[in-house]
């Protein structure tokens, strides 16, 4: 009864509280409004003929039979789009020397991966459109196929982009300190080559859009299952030559995105073009097999890395080469080199490291594009760093915790700048390490491991520290010339009945954006959360902003909402002060009532202020203009990124007979700054970890030598299911960023960032009694048995 009061005991205190998401009730009742559910009058359906070849010249396309099918309205090829759409090139200015060829909605003369959309058919139903696809004949002339990294780099080998000297998209080099010198004087050097397979987002709702061009109004409306409606408004406007104000992008409920739904896809641009050509709404929903061959893939890196240490185990230097293969084009508008760039810049990030050298080579190949997917580059940087740290520990005879305690940047040593140029405001590696050690009962687990080992049960314990990039500023894409906003906007109104409407540019994909924004608004204004209605995802209604990607929803969107609310509150109190003949500073708002600051005594409901302002402004003093709608924008300043950190731990068991791995328990200590809704943060972390565990053990887009994706269905491509996933224990350290009032950083990628590194370390730990190591992700049973020389 007499527990001390906390900030959460204050009325309307919602920041930091685990409240359910208001919009989740709809989804639970089957009343979601996904784009795939949408049906418009006069709507037609598009389907695409896809290339069976990974690389071929298009000699002729015969479409007469398809056009003749009853119910078919249009058959369109690349040339039809080239007349109305300008091409795009996936490069950014700040990646000097980067190349990629221009892309059109559908190809003009060549196909460059198996599964590339070739011809579009629009018909009265998807089934009729698919029937018609079967009647299209294409004459191809095979071109040499470049499938793997080595093949792509072979001097004198086939070149994918005509006119290019090689298949290199981009090269970059970082070099700071005295790396060679450090290696020369090192007591210990560890070195390894790592491979990371391609995997893909597998959102449960595939990509979906309905494009609706009204030629009479010159207006394009696109219902688009995307994270970034403003970006697509800009792109559709520029590439199809429609004034921006006449392009509306509506993103209602989205069935999963994870970065996958913010890239430009050829089919999506084509569907907009089809609607323009027909003047009718056209719907396209990728089926699952199309998703596998046309959604972006991610990862696909081969990294060679070495680490030098002194006799005590202090890290002296790292030297890294990252080769990454990205498919035939670089994606637009964010490019496909961002992942590799983040890999080489995040390696070594948790540690005191001054001597660092890295080379990055980004390479084209005849596969679908890779690009940004949850925790861009983080899992690779983390796995490389943390595996080398473990290798060094075992070489020197240090425990996994001990070597990290020795090397992490101390919590009191911030601000810090990494040798790769990242500026860290304040991180908490030491606190996180300590907390993880307790939470895992690490010593107990080690004793149990030793015990079980005697009985032929091989358990592994792995830990991995990480640094996560969140709240990106204009330094991310803006400086490279991409029209991707790093600011967000909110329009906040007090309605005539005293409720609050918040239109905000950050979008909701299920993370709980709308919930946390309503929490922040309710908290800052002093009203009940259910009196706040948050509206997202409509460029015609909500102000322009970057929307939700790269963990910017809470940190940037939340701060925007907070600042907007403070302006609205000030305005409400100014009107209240006029009505009550009081100083605004003597008034506050609690539970929707204006109260005296000093006594807490209610004076006037804010609904009454709204009523007077909207309907009886004649009773206000002359000159009073009630501003009960405020429009406010916020762009991050100060640090270019709000870096977060944390550490994960993993306990697993390797069956050395079958090569199967059982995940027993997973742990995370994470520091995302100010937590707005602990329940949402925790399941966000768990979801991220599960995506990382999927990558660690199951997920891989496997290609044949001829560039065919061999496991492009949910029966063949393994995703983590509940049975294989462990319970996940979570703890938090809170180091708010001082760059914002709210203090929140991102949390969406933290789980994915270190999960596969943890598993890699745990499997190698389980291998300790054997002469075996593993350095390749995903860690499949076949790889385990091969490492154990049993296969």
């Amino acid at each position, binding site marked *: 009864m007499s527990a001390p009061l906390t900030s959460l005991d204050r009325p309307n205190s919602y920041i930091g509280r685990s409240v*359910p*998401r208001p919009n*989740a*009730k*709809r*989804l*639970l*009742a*089957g*009343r*979601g409004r*996904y784009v*795939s*559910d949408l*049906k418009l009058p006069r709507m037609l359906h598009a389907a695409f003929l896809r290339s069976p070849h990974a690389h071929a010249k298009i000699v002729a396309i015969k479409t007469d*039979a398809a056009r003749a*099918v009853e119910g078919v309205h249009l058959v369109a090829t690349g040339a039809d789009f080239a007349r109305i759409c300008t091409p795009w090139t996936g490069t950014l200015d700040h990646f000097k020397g980067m190349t990629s060829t221009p892309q059109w909605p559908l190809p003009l003369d060549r196909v460059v991966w198996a599964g590339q959309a070739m011809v579009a058919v629009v018909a009265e139903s998807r*089934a*009729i459109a698919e*029937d018609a696809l*079967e*009647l299209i*004949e294409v004459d191809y002339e095979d071109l040499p196929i470049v499938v793997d990294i080595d093949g792509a780099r072979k001097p004198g080998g086939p070149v994918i982009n005509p006119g290019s000297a090689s298949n290199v998209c981009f090269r970059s080099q970082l070099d700071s300190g005295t790396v060679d010198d450090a290696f020369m004087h090192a007591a210990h050097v560890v070195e390894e080559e790592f491979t990371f397979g391609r995997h893909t*987002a*597998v*959102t*449960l*709702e595939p990509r979906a859009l309905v494009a609706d061009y009204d030629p009479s109004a010159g207006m394009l409306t696109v219902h688009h299952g995307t994270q970034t409606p403003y970006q697509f408004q800009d792109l559709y406007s520029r590439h199809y030559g429609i004034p921006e104000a006449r392009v509306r992008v509506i993103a209602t*409920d*989205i*069935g*999963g*995105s*994870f970065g996958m739904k913010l890239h430009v896809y050829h089919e999506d641009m084509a569907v907009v073009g089809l609607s323009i050509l027909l003047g009718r709404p056209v719907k396209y929903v990728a*089926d*699952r097999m199309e998703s596998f061959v046309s959604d972006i893939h991610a990862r696909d890196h081969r990294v060679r890395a070495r680490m030098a240490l002194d006799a005590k185990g202090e890290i002296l230097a790292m030297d890294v080469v990252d080769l990454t293969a990205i498919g035939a084009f670089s994606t637009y508008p964010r490019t496909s080199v961002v992942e590799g760039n983040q890999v080489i810049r995040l390696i070594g990030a948790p540690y005191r490291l001054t001597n660092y050298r890295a080379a990055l080579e980004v390479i084209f190949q005849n596969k679908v594009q890779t690009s940004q997917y949850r925790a861009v580059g983080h899992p690779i940087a983390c796995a490389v760093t943390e595996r080398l740290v473990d290798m060094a520990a075992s070489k020197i005879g240090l425990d996994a915790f001990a070597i990290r305690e020795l090397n992490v940047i101390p919590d009191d040593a911030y601000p810090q700048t990494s040798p790769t140029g990242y500026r860290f405001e304040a991180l908490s590696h030491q606190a996180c390490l300590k907390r993880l050690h307790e939470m895992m009962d690490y010593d107990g687990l080690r004793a149990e491991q030793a015990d079980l080992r005697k009985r032929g049960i091989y358990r592994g314990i792995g830990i991995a520290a990480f640094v996560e990039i969140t709240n990106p500023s204009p330094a991310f894409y803006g400086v490279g010339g991409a029209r991707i906003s790093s600011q967000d906007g909110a329009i906040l109104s007090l309605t005539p009945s005293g409720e609050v409407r918040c239109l905000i540019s950050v979008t909701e*994909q*299920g*993370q*709980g954006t709308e919930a946390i924004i309503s929490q922040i608004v309710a908290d800052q204004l002093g009203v009940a959360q259910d009196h706040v209605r948050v509206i997202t995802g409509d460029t015609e209604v909500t102000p322009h902003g970057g929307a939700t990607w790269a963990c910017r929803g809470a940190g940037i969107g939340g701060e925007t909402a907070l600042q907007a609310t403070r302006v609205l509150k000030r305005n409400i109190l100014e009107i209240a002060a006029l009505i009550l003949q009081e100083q605004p500073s003597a008034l506050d708002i609690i539970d929707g009532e204006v109260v005296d600051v000093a006594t807490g005594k209610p004076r006037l409901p804010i609904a009454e202020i709204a009523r007077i302002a909207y309907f009886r402004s004649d009773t206000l003093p002359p000159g009073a203009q009630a501003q009960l709608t405020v429009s406010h924008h916020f762009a991050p300043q100060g640090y270019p990124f709000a870096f977060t950190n944390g550490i994960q731990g993993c306990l697993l068991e390797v069956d050395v007979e079958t090569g199967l791995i059982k995940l027993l328990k997973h742990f995370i200590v994470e520091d995302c700054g100010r937590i707005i809704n602990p*329940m*949402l943060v925790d*399941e*966000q*972390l*768990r*979801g991220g*970890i*599960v*995506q990382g565990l999927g990558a660690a053990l199951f997920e891989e887009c496997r290609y044949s030598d001829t560039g065919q994706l061999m496991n492009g*269905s*949910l*029966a063949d491509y393994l*995703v983590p*299911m*509940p*049975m294989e*996933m462990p*319970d*996940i224990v979570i703890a938090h350290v809170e180091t708010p960023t001082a760059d914002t009032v709210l203090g929140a950083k991102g949390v969406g990628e933290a789980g994915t960032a270190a999960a596969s590194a943890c598993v890699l370390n745990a499997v190698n730990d389980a291998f300790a009694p054997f002469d075996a190591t593993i350095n390749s992700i995903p860690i499949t049973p076949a790889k385990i048995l091969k490492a154990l020389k049993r296969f």
Partner: protein
Amino acid sequence: MSGFDETLQDEAEAPVRVRFVVNGRKVACEVAPRDTLVDCLRDKLELTGTHAGCEMGACGACLVQLDGRAIHSCLIYAVQADGARIDTIEGLSEGGVLADLQAEFHRRNALQCGFCTPGMLINAQELLSRVAEPGRGEIRDALSGNYCRCTGYEAIVDAIDAVAKARSKGGVAT
């Protein structure tokens, strides 16, 4: 022409009249023989709460009850369901059958994007109708035909566990 047999297309498209009892209401509609039940529910009957995720019975987003049992509506043709009683997420929600599960999922935020959620709830209901108080392992096992990409599954397991316990005590959770 390419030798395409147009009669095959005509047959595939020739409508067939089917009758169901959907969410307690008699429904008749015309479907093509190749239309799956999920297509019929979503497109013809506009019951969009049932989702198509993989269209091969692997992801569980399309689960509905057919004569009281959970089935994948992407794996049967609409014509095969002729004469059956079908209950979708919409009917089960309105009838209050899932109310305690929905409340517990909401309270624990056992969903994110919500695309898998109708199938998840229908599977959970099926499990609890077979096993009064399943262990966490049993719950995880039973859900292994329901793919969720957003959550870590843990809140879902927790929610079903809580409802199972509440139901077996004769009450409701929360």
